[in-house]
């Protein structure tokens, strides 16, 4: 793997490394700087481990003001900066370059304010996703977006990638749950947007910033919506003889007017691995749906009965409602640990396209065909309710040929998603991984408009370099960048 080309590092910056480190120490204090090679190694990649670059230095700030000082300095001297949360990006969003300073916000993890009357929490963005929910759990509240990596991933990364999760079918993704931001701009100035009220004043800058993949500035604090948890929730398992039947069942549920809180899909290869790992009692079927509904006991009962009726025409092999909190936990544990469980048996390349629901059957058949053609196996796991696919293409990372095939197969899968009316990424972001596929989804004029906005926030293109936008076709400011090399 690693077909994506990264630009040659700026040699002048590399040559000044020691001086830059000394300056950073002076600006934020030595204890906030990692300069030794062993320490920097920990930041050379993220969850897309095929790509690695040792960063120039790592800054671990404790305050917004420290970040402001670092950005002001880097902007002044033309030094690139890569913002980082927990480094769980599956698209290489936190991959550094050799000539870049990594600013990792993991130390900034405090809950600053919880306001149950107005149903908001104000937090530093280095807090993990799950820690926000934990902080408000005793009062019966939670923070809705729930990426599978929620134990580790930070709100910073969630904001960068506009992360989703299994339950966003009902509650929306990050951008729907962020009301306010404090952000350091590339010149070191600090702006505050929105707050505890709904819909910030003026242009929707928060909407532009959430999901901008660290291209626009470094967010340091956020005001997020917290929601009162439902009285109860219960999943049911519905097994089918074919993926098509499962896909049609999803459409029937959504079309009926019932919006479950989650509808998750797994195919047989994924089911087997997850069952071996979590002992969740998944049936051994060709395709499985986990459908979860929420509410009081009578509401849950009524909804599950309705869903059972809707599923019957599709000839389910198995229809089973969770009977206990333990069983529900096991069902979700299996699903949420799916990536890890599959990672124990094989290397995999995780895709993240989204498709219109009606194309589900067709796309699943095509994914199998694509992977077969490359001689690779695939396990499918995804958020079926909103058409967000996560095919895991299995390969051997020690086999360069297989790795290359996996990446090619992945690109073909994403091209297929776009061809049927979907998109390259539903929740993982473009990062380095899908950068060169952006032209599949967007034409030159679409990309030009996006890049003009990037230039508004980051006139010299110093933030999170070499990501998101194809290298060719970048504006003039980028033409000066050293020529790309393999």
């Amino acid at each position, binding site marked *: 793997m690693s077909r994506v080309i990264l630009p040659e590092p700026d040699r002048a910056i590399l040559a000044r490394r020691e001086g830059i480190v000394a300056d950073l120490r002076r600006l934020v204090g030595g204890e906030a700087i990692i300069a030794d090679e062993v320490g920097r190694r920990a930041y050379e990649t993220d969850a897309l481990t095929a790509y690695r670059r040792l960063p120039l230095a790592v800054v671990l700030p404790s305050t917004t003001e420290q970040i402001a000082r670092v950005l002001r300095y880097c902007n002044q001297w033309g030094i690139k900066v890569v913002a980082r949360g927990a480094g769980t990006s599956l698209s290489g969003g936190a991959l550094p370059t050799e000539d870049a300073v990594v600013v990792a916000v993991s130390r900034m993890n405090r809950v600053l304010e919880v*306001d149950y009357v*107005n149903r*908001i929490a104000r937090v530093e963005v280095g807090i993990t996703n799950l820690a926000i929910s934990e902080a408000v759990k005793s009062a*019966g509240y939670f923070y809705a977006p729930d990426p599978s990596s929620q134990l580790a991933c930070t709100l910073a990364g969630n904001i960068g*990638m506009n992360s*989703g999760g299994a339950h*966003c079918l009902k509650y*929306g993704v990050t*951008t*729907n749950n962020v009301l306010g931001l404090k952000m350091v*701009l590339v010149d070191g100035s*600090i702006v505050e947007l929105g707050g505890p*009220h*709904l*819909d910030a*004043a*003026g*242009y*929707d*800058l*928060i*909407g*532009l910033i*959430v*999901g*901008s993949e660290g*291209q626009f500035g470094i967010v340091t604090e956020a005001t997020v919506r917290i929601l*009162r948890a*439902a*009285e109860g929730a219960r999943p049911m398992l519905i097994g089918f003889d074919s993926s098509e039947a499962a896909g049609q069942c999803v459409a029937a549920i*959504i079309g009926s*007017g019932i919006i479950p809180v989650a509808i998750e899909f797994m195919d047989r290869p994924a089911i087997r691995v997850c069952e071996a790992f979590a002992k969740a009692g998944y049936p051994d079927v060709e395709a499985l749906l986990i459908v979860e509904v929420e*509410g*009081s006991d*009578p*509401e849950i009962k009524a909804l599950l009965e309705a869903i059972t009726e809707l599923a019957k025409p599709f000839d389910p092999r198995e229809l089973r409602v969770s009977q206990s909190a333990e069983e529900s936990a096991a069902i979700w544990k299996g699903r949420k640990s799916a990536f890890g469980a599959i990672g124990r048996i094989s290397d995999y390349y995780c895709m993240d396209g*989204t498709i*219109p*629901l*009606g194309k589900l059957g067709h796309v699943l058949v095509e994914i199998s065909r694509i992977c077969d053609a490359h001689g690779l196996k695939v396990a499918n796991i995804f*958020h079926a309710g*909103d058409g967000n696919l996560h095919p895991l293409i299995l390969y051997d990372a020690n086999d360069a040929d297989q790795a290359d095939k996996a990446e090619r197969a992945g690109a073909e899968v994403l091209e297929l998603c776009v061809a049927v*009316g*979907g*998109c*390259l*990424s539903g*929740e993982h*972001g*473009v990062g380095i991984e899908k950068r060169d596929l952006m032209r599949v989804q*967007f034409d030159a*004029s*679409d990309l*030009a*408009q996006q890049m*003009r*906005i990037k*230039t*508004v926030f980051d006139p010299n293109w110093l933030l999170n370099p070499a990501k*998101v936008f194809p290298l060719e076709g970048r504006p003039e400011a980028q033409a000066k960048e050293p020529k790309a090399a393999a």
Partner: protein
Amino acid sequence: MPSDVRPVDERELAQILREAGQARTPLELKGGGSKHNIGRPMTTTLGLSTGALRGITLYEPNEMVMAARSGTPLAQLEESLAQRGQMLAFEPASLGAAAGGEARAATIGAVFATNLSGARRIMVGAARDHLLGLRAVNGRGEIFKAGGRVMKNVTGVDLCRGLAGSWGTLAVMSEVTFKVLPMPEHTETLVLLGLPDEIAIEVLCTAMGTPFEVSGAAHLQPAMVARLEHEGLRGQGQAVTALRLENFKASVDYRKGKLKALLKAYGEIHDLDHDNSLALWQELRALTLLKASDAPLWRISTAPSAGPKVVAAIARYMDCSAFYDWAGGLIWLEMLPTTDAGAADVRRVIATHGGHATLIRAAPEVRAAVDVFQPLEAGVGTISRQLKAAFDPAGILNPGRMYADF
């Protein structure tokens, strides 16, 4: 009012904008004209109407998605949705009655361009949260697209949200794709009468802090109640505090029981049945109680608990009456006409309590003299000005409508 050009397709729209950009001819954008009187008055001589860009281009009820050309009348589109038991869940606020524009004329493009959402915003999100994709033309005359037709999409810069709420100052949408949701099977409303604002907002916030999925939380001061068309409530002659519950009947019944038990200390709780509930919330959405007059009208967004404080603080300086939505976080505030429509006081109070205020209705000379939209803090103002230039370098799209200098 300037004369209008009405492009019949996206290509013609792009041609018009290209020429206007080159000639630096400012254009006043218009959909159906229902919000024509909102914003700072412009000095443009040429109008650009999206009224001929009509038609639903995609509707997949099973995927909860619809696309339409931007000039498609909202009423027509909602009719198509209703035939399949679906709706725009964020209940786009109708400004026609309140702002003296043409009633029921709103277009779907303007719904997203203004991002004005109704009562259900507290539960399902704003207009911006339902916009999945768009096609638009920028001030250079370039056609671009953003987003798509799928529910989850984080590919590239989120231009959909960038354009939502930009009041036609960045680009002209030619087509929008959006999420639709099933209409609830059953609706009921709990009503408490005669509560002072502070207590009423406490009731609304308490209800919002339960698991019982309140989908509308409004409070009307007595002066607002007196203007209701709903006779039963108008006849009460006192403040009305309303909580809406929606879903299948058994679920509504259950949650109604729970909420009544929880809120019983606040006084007698009355029920509005399904039909009466629909009538009340439809009326609140249409804002007919804020019918056009010469009284200035403000729309204030603040933290719900700050709502009554904001209103009380402004009321110390001038006579005003309030309709609170969003559990107290959205205030429609009407006041007696003054030379500045109360702007100085409103801005000062907002600075203390947080949030933002928009002057929705006032005489043109007043709207020309005061900030209609919330003034921006310096850093945010700089970015906003540059963002405008990134879409519309010649400044031809609704120049001055939001801010005096861009």
